[in-house]
C-alpha cells in the first residue's frame, strides 16, 4: 500500500470524514468543488491540520493525531503541484526546478534533471523568468519542480483547472507519462470527468466530505450509484487496443473482442487506449439493431439501474469490453422492461466520442 489516509475535519458547516487508500499509479480524488478534495490534499501535505486523522506513506507516518505525530510540510517529502503553479517569481526556471533539490535528504535518489527537463519539453525555458512563461509552460515547470525535489509522492490539486482547453490538452499527456513512467504514486484532484477517465488508475469519489466510492477507475466510473460530478457527467471508461486504420478515416479498435470504430486516432496498431463513453451518448437496444447508422454496438447484460431525481435513469451494462453506463429516460427503461440480468445492446456513434476523451493506456 502506497498511501493510507483517514481524516476527520470540520470547517464551519462543512464536515469531512474520509478513509481511503492510494495504490501506485494515479489516484484521482473526484468530486465537485466543495466536496473536500483540496482539504484532503492539504492535510496530506501538512498545510492544514485536521481535527483528527492518520496519514501513512509507504510505512512512514506523516500524521497521527492520536499519537501526537504531525510532520511539518518540509519533512513530508511530497511534491505538490498547485492549481496556480506557484512558481517563485524571483527565480529563473532553472532556479525554480532546482529549488527542492537543495533540501532533499542526502540519501534520496536524485531525480534525473536532464530526463525530466526533456520529458516536459522545458529545456529552452531554463533561463527565463516565470513571468515570461505561458500558462501551460508554467504548469510544466511546476510539474518539473515537484518531480525534482525527489518526492515520495506527487500531489496535484486540479493542475489543469486554470488552463484553457488547448493548454489542458497540452498538459494532460505529461501526466499520462508520469503515470506510466514514474514509479511514485500520484494523488490527483479533479472535478472533470474527462480528466479522470484519461488519467485515473484508482478513483476515490467524494461527495459532501464523504467517500461514495473507491476502487479501480473502470469499476468506479462504471458504477451508476457513484456520480460525484452529477449524472450529466457520468460515463464509463473502457480499455481497448488499436487494430488498424481504415482508408475512410476510421480507426478500428478491439475492446474485449468487440470491434469499435472511432475517427482516426494518431496511434500505432497494437497500442492501448482508454476511452470515456459518456452515459448520455449511449443508446440501449434490447435486440441487436439493424439498419442503424451508429457503428459501435456492444452486447451486454444489464447490471444495475438507478432512477434519477428527474425523468432520467442510469443503467450499467456488463459488456465484453467492460462496464458501460447509459443514461436513458425512465419511460424508455419501462418500455424496454429493463431489469438486471437481461441482455441488452449499447449503441454508440463513432463521432460522439470526443477526442479529449481518448488517451493512451
Amino acid at each position: 500500500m502506497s498511501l493510507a489516509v483517514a481524516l476527520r475535519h470540520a470547517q464551519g458547516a462543512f464536515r469531512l470524514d474520509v478513509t481511503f487508500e492510494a495504490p501506485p499509479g494515479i489516484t484521482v480524488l473526484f468530486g465537485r468543488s466543495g466536496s473536500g478534495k483540496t482539504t484532503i490534499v492539504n492535510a496530506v501535505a501538512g498545510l492544514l491540520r485536521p481535527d483528527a486523522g492518520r496519514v501513512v506513506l509507504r510505512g512512514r507516518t506523516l500524521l497521527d493525531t492520536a499519537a501526537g505525530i504531525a510532520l511539518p510540510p518540509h519533512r513530508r517529502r511530497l511534491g505538490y503541484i498547485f492549481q496556480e503553479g506557484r512558481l517563485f517569481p524571483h527565480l529563473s526556471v532553472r532556479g525554480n526546478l532546482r529549488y527542492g533539490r537543495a533540501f532533499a535528504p542526502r540519501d534520496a535518489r536524485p531525480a534525473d534533471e536532464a530526463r525530466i527537463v526533456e520529458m516536459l519539453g522545458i529545456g529552452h525555458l531554463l533561463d527565463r523568468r516565470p513571468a515570461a512563461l505561458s500558462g501551460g509552460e508554467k504548469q510544466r515547470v511546476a510539474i518539473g519542480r515537484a518531480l525534482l525535489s525527489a518526492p515520495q509522492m506527487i500531489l496535484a490539486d486540479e493542475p489543469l483547472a486554470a488552463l484553457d482547453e488547448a493548454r489542458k490538452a497540452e498538459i494532460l499527456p505529461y501526466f499520462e507519462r508520469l503515470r506510466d513512467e514514474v514509479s511514485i504514486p500520484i494523488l490527483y484532484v479533479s472535478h472533470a470527468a474527462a480528466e479522470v477517465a484519461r488519467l485515473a488508475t484508482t478513483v476515490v469519489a467524494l461527495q459532501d466530505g464523504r467517500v461514495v466510492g473507491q476502487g479501480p477507475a473502470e469499476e468506479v466510473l462504471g458504477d451508476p450509484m457513484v456520480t460525484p460530478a452529477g449524472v450529466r457527467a457520468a460515463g464509463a471508461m473502457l480499455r481497448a487496443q488499436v487494430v488498424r486504420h481504415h482508408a475512410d478515416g476510421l480507426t478500428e479498435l478491439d475492446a474485449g473482442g468487440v470491434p469499435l470504430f472511432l475517427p482516426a486516432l494518431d496511434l500505432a496498431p497494437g497500442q492501448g487506449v482508454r476511452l470515456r463513453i459518456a452515459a448520455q451518448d449511449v443508446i440501449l437496444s434490447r435486440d441487436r439493431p439493424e439498419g442503424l447508422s451508429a457503428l459501435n454496438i456492444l452486447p451486454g447484460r444489464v447490471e444495475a439501474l438507478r432512477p434519477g431525481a428527474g425523468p432520467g435513469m442510469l443503467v450499467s451494462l456488463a459488456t465484453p469490453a467492460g462496464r458501460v453506463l447509459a443514461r436513458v429516460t425512465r419511460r424508455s427503461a419501462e418500455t424496454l422492461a429493463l431489469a438486471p440480468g437481461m441482455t441488452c445492446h449499447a449503441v454508440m456513434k463513432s463521432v460522439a466520442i470526443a477526442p479529449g476523451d481518448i488517451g493512451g493506456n
Partner: protein
Amino acid sequence: MDAPLDWLDAEAWQAVRLSLRVAFWATLVSLPFGVGVAWLLARCRFPGRQLLNGLVHLPLILPPVVTGYLLLLGFGRQGPLGGPLAELGIVFAFRWTGAALAAAIMGFPLMVRAIRLSLEAVDPKLEQAAATLGASRSMVFVTVTLPLILPGILAGAILGFARGMGEFGATITFVSNIPGETQTLPSAIYTFLQVPGGETAALQLVAVSVAIAMAALLLSEWIGTRLARRVAGA
C-alpha cells in the same frame, strides 16, 4: 578628512560627515529590528500586538522634543537603561551614538511601515510551496520571503536614512548640539542661523542637504526598479 569642497566651511563639513555617519549607523543597526517587528505585526497574532504597533508608531506622533526627553530620561547616565549600559561601556548621552539612537527611533516607524507593507504583499502560497519542496521555516524566509520583500526593505532603509539625516528635535534634546560630536546637519543649520553672518554657511548646508536627499532618492529609485523587475521576473 579635509573638506573636499573648498567652499564649505570646516565646521559645516564636520556636521555633514557626522550626519551621514549617524544616519548610516542608525539605519544599519535598526534594519534587522525593523524586519523583525514588521514580521511580528504582519504575520503574528499575539496579545499585545496592538500595543507593540502603538509603541512603534509613537515617535511619529509625539513631538520630537518629547521623544528626545524620554530618551534622555531612559538612556542618560543616571537613566534605568543608560546606567547599566554605561557600565558595559556603551554611552549614548551627549555622544554621536546618542544622535544615532535618536535618529533610529525617529526613523523606525517609517522603516517598519514600508517593510510591513511589502511583507503583507507576499503571497503566503509561495511560502507554502517552498515548504512542500522541503524548505524549513527559516529557509523559506531566507530563500523566498526575504528576496520578495527586498524592495520594501530598501524603501524602509531609505526612509529611515532620510529621517535620520533630518532629525533635529529629539537629537538636540537628547544629546545637545556639540560641534564635532553631536552637531548634525540640521543642528548646524540652526546654529548658523542664530549668529549674525551665518546665512552663507547655512545656505551651503541647505544645498548639501538637498543634494544628499536627491542622491538618496535617485539611488533608491534606481535600485528599486531593478529589484522590482528582478522580483517580478520581467
